[in-house]
């Protein structure tokens, strides 16, 4: 393998080459972080990795499973690039990694992907992930500004804002939701579209996303099979009653932007000192609710915002800030976070769905979930550290090839995941988009920041089906069905990726002076991170013959086939 990658290095120039120096600096930093690592040390000297390895291995022992072999360097390199920065590796990144002989090269690569060198791509990837979590993939409307949301997220991830701050910022955000407006705060877009009808959506989504509590059904009734009670929904809802989404209008009366503010709230009973809300039971009985957190902690029911009387007496409470503090202190918050981030890397979390941590839904690895949550808190909610632990774990290093001893470990058929082999999953559409740019080296010319992101939105919109409900429910046809295959066969994105025009990727490969064998190798490395098999080489050569020496057209055919394969679109 090593010979293969080094052999195709020579012919490529220009954008295929990364910055040597920057890589070196990042490597140095990463190496320092794992200074205690020794050769053969399976957890790179990181106690949290050791903890994960022990817990997952205990699960294997219980279920009498044997883990698969380790993934190849190429496979692992492709996987970790996709998961951490949202795209496949370049040929150069791949060959550098394979050629690296350091015993801690995996830790070094993770260090580089989490380091300053990759910070823009890291932030873009996680901003994409969280935009989908917080506001969905549907296009924006009057109340939600995608671009504002994404800009805020990108900044948060590029600064690696601790997760507790991140959550509190989203839950308590005030300001204007659209970039360029006075008082802009993009974080407001999480709640700006969820405050209608007394903030029912704000209540449901906040509980679901950040605490792993499914409360949406308890709006109307006690839950039939989990412990959720209707009063808990409305007591949680009471925290959002000071929040208001004000509309700013243009002269044309079009909504220009939304401003999220907190205002004194007199309550539905008209007594601000004891501001209450009412809800209706199924039998028509009316009940009252005050702000009470899900663990029973009560908060001053005063509807006034904090202020001072003339004599200096303080009164009032900011309910959203009180809520954020209670959430951050709750053991559910780190568990929900760890579960979500784990599932990002493994395709499955410890519970299904990942945002339901209720007692009725027992996790696959309860001690690992709890323990990882506690360690995340001890690490001051440093998301990058959590990612480092997960990506350096033994489980994450395993091959996706199912082995004799672990065929029963198949969450796709409803089993609880045991992580004894890597589970196949299709790239997210955002990952595909970004990977095609990378594979064709079009990322160099990609429009940076918001402009590029909006182009990606436009492309994504073809896959989104919005159901038009108040909850903003949506589905995607980017799910392995025919429309997706048609897009890959014939769509503009792949058309562009397989263009043969001067200066494009295929043109550069064709004119690089490499032999045909090396050209084919390069295409395989760029898209699949592996060498072609003998059979594939034979077919590729037949294409060369069929194109009668028109090398670039033959390369185009091969490239089209490679990009349309299951192996390309599946993270394995």
């Amino acid at each position: 393998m090593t010979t293969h990658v080094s052999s195709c290095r020579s012919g490529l120039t220009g954008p295929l080459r990364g910055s040597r120096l920057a890589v070196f600096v990042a490597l140095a930093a990463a190496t320092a972080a794992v200074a205690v690592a020794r050769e053969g040390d399976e957890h790179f000297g990181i106690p949290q990795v050791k903890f994960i390895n022990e817990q997952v291995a205990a699960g294997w022992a219980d279920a009498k499973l044997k883990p698969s072999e380790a993934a190849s360097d190429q496979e692992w390199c492709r996987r970790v690039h996709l998961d951490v920065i949202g795209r496949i590796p370049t040929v150069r990144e791949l060959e550098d990694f394979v050629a690296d002989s350091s015993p801690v090269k995996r830790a070094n690569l993770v260090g580089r992907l989490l380091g300053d060198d990759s910070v823009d791509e890291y932030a873009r990837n996680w901003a994409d992930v969280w935009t989908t979590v917080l506001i969905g993939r549907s296009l924006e409307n009057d109340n939600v500004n995608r671009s504002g949301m994404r800009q805020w997220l990108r900044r948060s991830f590029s600064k690696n804002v601790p997760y507790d701050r991140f959550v509190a910022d989203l839950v308590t955000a005030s300001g204007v939701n659209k970039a360029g407006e006075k008082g802009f705060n993009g974080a407001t877009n999480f709640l700006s579209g969820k405050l209608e009808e007394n903030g029912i959506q704000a209540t449901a989504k906040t509980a679901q996303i950040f605490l792993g509590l499914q409360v949406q059904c308890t709006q109307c009734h006690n839950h039939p099979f989990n412990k959720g009670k209707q009063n808990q929904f409305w007591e949680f809802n009471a925290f959002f009653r000071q929040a208001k989404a004000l509309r700013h209008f243009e002269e044309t009366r079009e909504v220009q932007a939304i401003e999220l503010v907190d205002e004194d709230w007199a309550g539905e009973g008209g007594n601000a000192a004891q501001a209450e809300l009412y809800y209706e039971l199924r039998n028509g009985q009316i009940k009252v609710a005050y702000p009470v957190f899900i663990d029973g902690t009560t908060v001053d029911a005063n509807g006034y915002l904090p202020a001072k009387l003339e004599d200096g007496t303080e009164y009032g409470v900011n309910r959203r800030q009180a809520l954020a503090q209670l959430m951050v202190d709750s053991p559910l918050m780190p568990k929900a976070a760890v579960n979500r981030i784990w599932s990002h890397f493994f395709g499955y979390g410890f519970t299904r769905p990942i945002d339901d941590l209720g007692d009725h839904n027992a996790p696959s690895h309860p001690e690992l979930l709890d323990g990882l949550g506690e360690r995340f808190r001890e690490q001051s909610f440093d998301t990058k550290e959590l990612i480092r632990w997960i990506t350096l774990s033994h489980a994450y290093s395993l091959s996706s090839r199912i082995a004799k001893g672990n065929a029963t470990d198949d969450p796709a058929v409803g089993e609880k995941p045991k992580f004894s082999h890597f589970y196949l999953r299709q790239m997210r559409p955002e990952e595909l988009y970004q990977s095609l740019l990378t594979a064709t080296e079009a990322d160099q010319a990609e429009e940076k920041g918001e402009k590029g992101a909006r182009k990606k939105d436009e492309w994504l919109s073809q896959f989104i089906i919005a159901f038009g409900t108040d909850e903003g429910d949506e589905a995607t046809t980017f799910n392995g069905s025919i429309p997706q295959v048609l897009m890959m066969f014939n769509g503009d994105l792949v058309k562009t990726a397989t263009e043969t025009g001067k200066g494009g990727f295929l043109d550069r490969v064709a004119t690089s002076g490499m032999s045909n064998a090396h050209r084919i190798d390069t295409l395989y490395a760029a898209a699949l991170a592996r060498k072609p098999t003998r059979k594939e080489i034979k077919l590729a050569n037949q294409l060369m013959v069929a194109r009668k020496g028109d090398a670039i057209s033959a390369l185009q055919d091969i490239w089209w086939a490679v990009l349309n394969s299951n192996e390309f679109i599946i993270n394995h």
Partner: protein
Amino acid sequence: MSATSRFIDGMSRRHFMSHVAGAAALAAPATAFTNSILANAADLKRRHKAAILLWMGGGPSTMDIWDLKPGAPTGGPFKPISTSADGIQICEHMPLMAQQMHHMSLVRSMSTREADHMRGRYYMHTGYVPNPNVEHPSYGAVIAHELADQVPDLEIPPFVSVGSGSVGPGFLGMSWAPFVVDANGNVRNLDMGIDPTRLSQRLEMLSAIEEKFIGEKRGNSSDDHAKVLSKTIKLMTSDQMESFKVMKEPKDVQDRYGNTGFGRGCLMARRLVEQGVPFVEVDLGGWDNHADIFKTLSDTKLPELDKAMAALVSDLAERGLLDDTAIIWMGEFSRTPNINGNGGRDHWARSWSVAVGGAGFKRGVVVGETSSDGKEVVTEPYSAQDLMASVLKSLDISLETTFTAKNGRPMKIANAGKVIKELFA
């Protein structure tokens, strides 16, 4: 560009297939396909069963449409009118459907428990409550799976969803997924723009990569990918794609269905069923009327529904297709009998109605009854699985059918629902 001219310079599809047949893993469907071209074209028109689901996304208030309660405090302002079916009255804002009710029947005793949109949508589509560990197949996947053998010459997907995306194929696998199109019948990305010889060479290369990856035993999604590839190739080369081109219908026909997305969707459903597609779902959203419900219903939703649905039912009847085509009208649930402070109705699953007709269903009957305020079913209540079992029976699909879920567990078709006897003669 028309489907026939999609291939370069009038090259026949038979010629094309002689090229494609070279591609190993993708050759099976291609060969079946070549054979189908040799079959007598008239065979394409032979009788087959089909079903059309009119999906009312958001949860329509059925006591304002099919089960009115005039005079009750919960009744709302709409008046009932008589219909072409003896003794059946429906909403005054459905005058065209009123003339078609002798083709349809109503079940006024649906009683379910899922009043969350996504849960209700899943439950009504599959007959199962959502379960994080198993994905169940929806109506379209089940019916397409069971009826596809009746239409061996079908080259387009057997499960088409117009507008909404429906619910997926679950454990039946991605090759039974809904093919989602917009109401204008536009299918994106159909043209590759290269000659067939070259396409077949590309496909051969592609199938080698697919086979290698599948052979490495990494899990089912790699096989599913290859299956969907085959279906896509079949579809890209099919003249049957014409049946999506709803705009080719005469203008007066289009007008009869209404110049709306739902109208065009219903017209497309008729064309697709004529072509042999066993299952079409047409989506009409906008029923989540938490506020100002009556104006929304009388001014927009009901006229749009009435026009398109009546045109579809009468067209199918006139063309002799109704006896083989089941029609199902339903949403994920209904809306509260109590009218809320915003002049709307909220989610309600306890007592509501669906409409069915065609195929083996008895026509012009009403099954079940709700209380005078609409809050209770006072006769035997029916569930999503009962309705699904009844629809399958109307299509002569055996209710003894058992699927095997991916985990090896047997799954009875329609979740072992019981047939609603009054719907059958």
